[in-house]
């Protein structure tokens, strides 16, 4: 709207000195960017520290998931007990039953 204001605010110089000053102050940041661009992405300290723990945590998690999913097999003692009971009930002789009771089976 107002040329007066624009003329008033526009710097007298052509901006070259200003640009050089900015580039001088930015030289460190530009150099870091060039270096990062050449080297590619790098692991930050946190990421380097976290990676072994991340792998360990994933390993534990996978073990935790795998154990309950194994097929269930009854304990050996329970199996033996059930065999004895079956033998006892299928026995046709009373003397064998008495013997078994006497023996604590």
């Amino acid at each position, binding site marked *: *709207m*107002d040329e*007066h*204001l*624009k*003329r*008033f*605010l*526009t*710097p*007298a110089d052509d*901006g*070259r000195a*200003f*640009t050089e*000053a*900015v*580039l001088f*102050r*930015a*030289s460190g*940041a*530009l*150099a*870091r*960017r*060039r*270096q*990062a*661009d050449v080297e590619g992405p790098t692991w930050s300290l946190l990421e380097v520290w976290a990676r072994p723990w991340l792998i360990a945590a994933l390993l534990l998690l996978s073990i935790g998931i795998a154990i309950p999913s194994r097929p269930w097999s009854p304990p050996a003692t329970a199996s033996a007990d059930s065999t004895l009971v079956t033998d006892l009930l299928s026995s046709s002789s009373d003397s064998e039953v008495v013997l078994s009771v006497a023996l604590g089976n």
Partner: protein
Amino acid sequence: MEPDAALVARAAAGDREAFGALVIRYQAPVRRVTRAVTGNADDADDAAQDAFLSALDRLETYDPSRPFGPWLMRIGSNAAIDLVRRRVVRTAVPLEHTVASSGVSPAAEAEAAEIRAELTAALAELPPRQRAAITLFDVEGYAHAEIAAMLGVPEGTVRSDVFHARRTLRKALRVYGPETED
């Protein structure tokens, strides 16, 4: 002319020439806004330089699908407003002595000098945000909504800022046009 987005991509990779091209392309509008806000040529250039360095640090946050100018002007406006809030600005170099001469007759130059003096006094009466708003609107041609995004205030606040700033400048100068809200 190489598009802004391409220059930004090269600057992000550390290309000095590309960053320099962005600075030379946008130094005038950024310096105009920082001059309006700080009212002092040295402080204005300090704020403008800080703005460009800050923009370089934040290049990854720039969305290449959007215009680069408003994104940069937001950083520039806020850098100038922050500088004014942080410290008392220098008064050693009056702005009127640092701006371009119009290259016309002595009478016209005298009139221009008078207008510059009036503008300096009038701008000094405005709060920093109003100075930024009227410069972005009347000088740089941004819309109210764009300025609202740049300054982080509601659009209605920008309209109000521009209105009040114009009224103040009109009183001081009597060179502005009819009083409107746009």
